[in-house]
């Protein structure tokens, strides 16, 4: 996919809210880990935003860690997870 071709992108995962990955560019084991953990986190984040303001909704979630940045774009059913190394410039 075009996203893969961007600089520093390590991998992408498309998962649903149950935590099952539909499509992935990384190994099985990694995919499982990321999909399950991040989907639950996204659910919590979304509910937090909705609790704070019921009209609000989660648009994008970015987790920046020492080694890389995990970006999650949630949708109604699915979510797109991208892992990038932002310091590789």
């Amino acid at each position, binding site marked *: 996919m075009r*996203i893969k071709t961007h600089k520093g992108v390590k991998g992408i995962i498309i*998962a649903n809210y*149950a935590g099952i990955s539909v499509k992935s560019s990384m190994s099985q084991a990694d995919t*499982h880990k990321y999909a*399950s953990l991040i*989907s639950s986190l996204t659910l919590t984040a979304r509910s937090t935003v909705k609790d704070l303001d019921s009209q609000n909704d989660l648009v994008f979630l970015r987790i920046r860690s020492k080694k890389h940045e995990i*970006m999650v774009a949630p949708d109604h059913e*699915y979510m797109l997870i991208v892992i990038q190394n*932002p310091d590789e410039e």
Partner: protein
Amino acid sequence: MVEPYSYKKKRREFERPPVFEDSELKPLGGTLSTPALQKQYVEKNPTHIILDNIPPLSTHDVNTERVVTATRNMKHIEGGWPREIDYSEEHDTTKWRTRQLKDPLLAAAVKELATLTDRAIKQNNQIDMFEEYFLGEQVDHSTETLSTKTLMLFKDPNDTKRSVSKIAWNPEGPGNKIAVAYSILRFQQMPEKLSTQSYIWDMAAPNTAFKTIQGSTPLVTIAFNNKYTDFLVGGGYNGTIGVWDVREKTNTPSWQTAIEKSHHDPVYDIYWLHGKSGNEFVSISTDGRLMWWDFRKDKDPTDSAYLTDGIQNSETKQESILGGTCLEYNPEAGATKYLAGTEQGVVVLANKKPQKAVEISHRYGIEGGKHHGPIYSIQRNPEEAKCFLTVGDWSAKIWSEEINTPIMTTKYHDTYLTDGCWSPTRPGVFFLTQMDGWLQIWDYHYRQNEIAFSHKVGDSMLTVVTVQNQPNAGKFGSLVAVGDSEGTVTLIELCESLYEPQSNEKISIKQTFEREFTREKNLKQAKRQQEGKKPKKEETSFEKAREKQNEALRKLEEEFFAKVGIEIGEEKSPEKSPERREAEQDFTPVPQKQKPPEMVEKKQSFKEIEPQEVPQQEEAQLEEEKEMPENESEHGEIEKEEEQGEEVEKEGEMEGEQEQEQEQEQEKEQEQEQEQAQDPVVQNAEGGGGVDGVVPPEI
């Protein structure tokens, strides 16, 4: 059939709720007393009966068992597969996946999300949003307001409160242990059963001491060994010194000095030496001695030296001894140099070279600038080892090793200062403790005429202050331990600006000290030069004054003899003249200074007549002498003395026999003039005629 409908309701809920109100008291009924039965009853008077319609209540405390909670995480390994698919079957999962991929919803969603994510990724690539901007810069704290915070207190657990006399930080590793020595130093105020224990406290447990050190006497000072931090040396109130091993379970010392060989007074300070063995230490006490010990060897001191003050007492031909109150040993400044502060306010520098006797090389403050009382603390500046700080009376002074007077002095504080120390990280900051419970912080980098910050620690007198030199949570020198006279040690944390070294601080403080040192040096030189101009005059006049004093005695003797009648023949006159001359030189203080100008004139005029007139003058003088005692002897003597006094004043400036002769003549002239003053009838020519016409004085 219609089923009967039934419902239940409590009777209490029917109708209106009852409303009770107070009514008047009225007797509702009663029974009369039967006298027959009365006999069976005992009268009880009075009786109180209270009736009430309250249900009996009681309280109960119940404590359920504590529920133990723990936090646990769940590792979610496998996602939530729909129920019909068995996720262990790979075939099923892949089938499900492919089915999902075909979902049009997915395609649309992915498209949208992709654009979003795309943007974010591009952003990331463009700028590093979380860049550290101020990584390399040094923080400039000079404009910050200073603050200090009390962290914790360590209280003396004994009943009789002893004052803290020394605090020592454990030099090892994460510095969180302090050894504290307790004693009562007030004169003769030690109660008999005073506890002789000192404690080591751990910062993690401020309520109970980590270890107790038991000695035979209260400890006045305590220090950790730098090399083997398990060894502690403690100096006691009775002058003995003991070494403790912290690892041992018993609290008694593993090595102790014999009381005969120890100091005669409390040991005020001890320092471990930084030699190879690490077993040696030096101690100081108010008995005036510095003693060196090695605790692996026998219990005798390896060396000892007296702190003398360098002034030879003229009677005993010995120097007096100064009592030592504090010590400083810093191998950076010199491994053989020991700085001692004394009770008299003077600082003494002792040099101990191996294989040689100890010699006192310098004394600071003897000429001027010494403290008005004992010096309570002395410490070298950690950056500039040549300069040291002394704390005593009401001020703190900074000295340089090369000059005997202090180079800088703080203003007088409002109460006595009891202790002080430098900050180990900032060379311009030092701490002082006062008798009224305040801790004063001076910052010479920022301002030199005012105290930078004051912190009130408590109401009781503060006795000790030390700053931690080891890292505490990564910060050096941020903890200050202050002890007071009630036995409480307070740990104070400083704000960053007080312990983080400022940029250029080291250089600027060094420059400050250099500048002050040069100023003192120049002042001293200027003083010396001034004194250098007048040394001869003052010396000769001093010597002459002494001679004159001795001569005055002789002269009085002569007069006495003359009065009594022991006549001195005219033959002896030439002999007498030198005596007379000497007598004339007697320095009897006479305020008269009236005649000098006239005398000078006469001196000149007399020069020609000298040789002839001398004997005649002498004769005349002799006659006068003889006559004088007969007549108004006192008056004559006074005259003589006056004359001699006048001459003497002049004699101070002149030398040589000729001058003496002239003086004689002048004396004679003085006599004559005085006679003239008294007897206006007798007129002697001012020239040389007066010699012949000597008329006996008034009768």
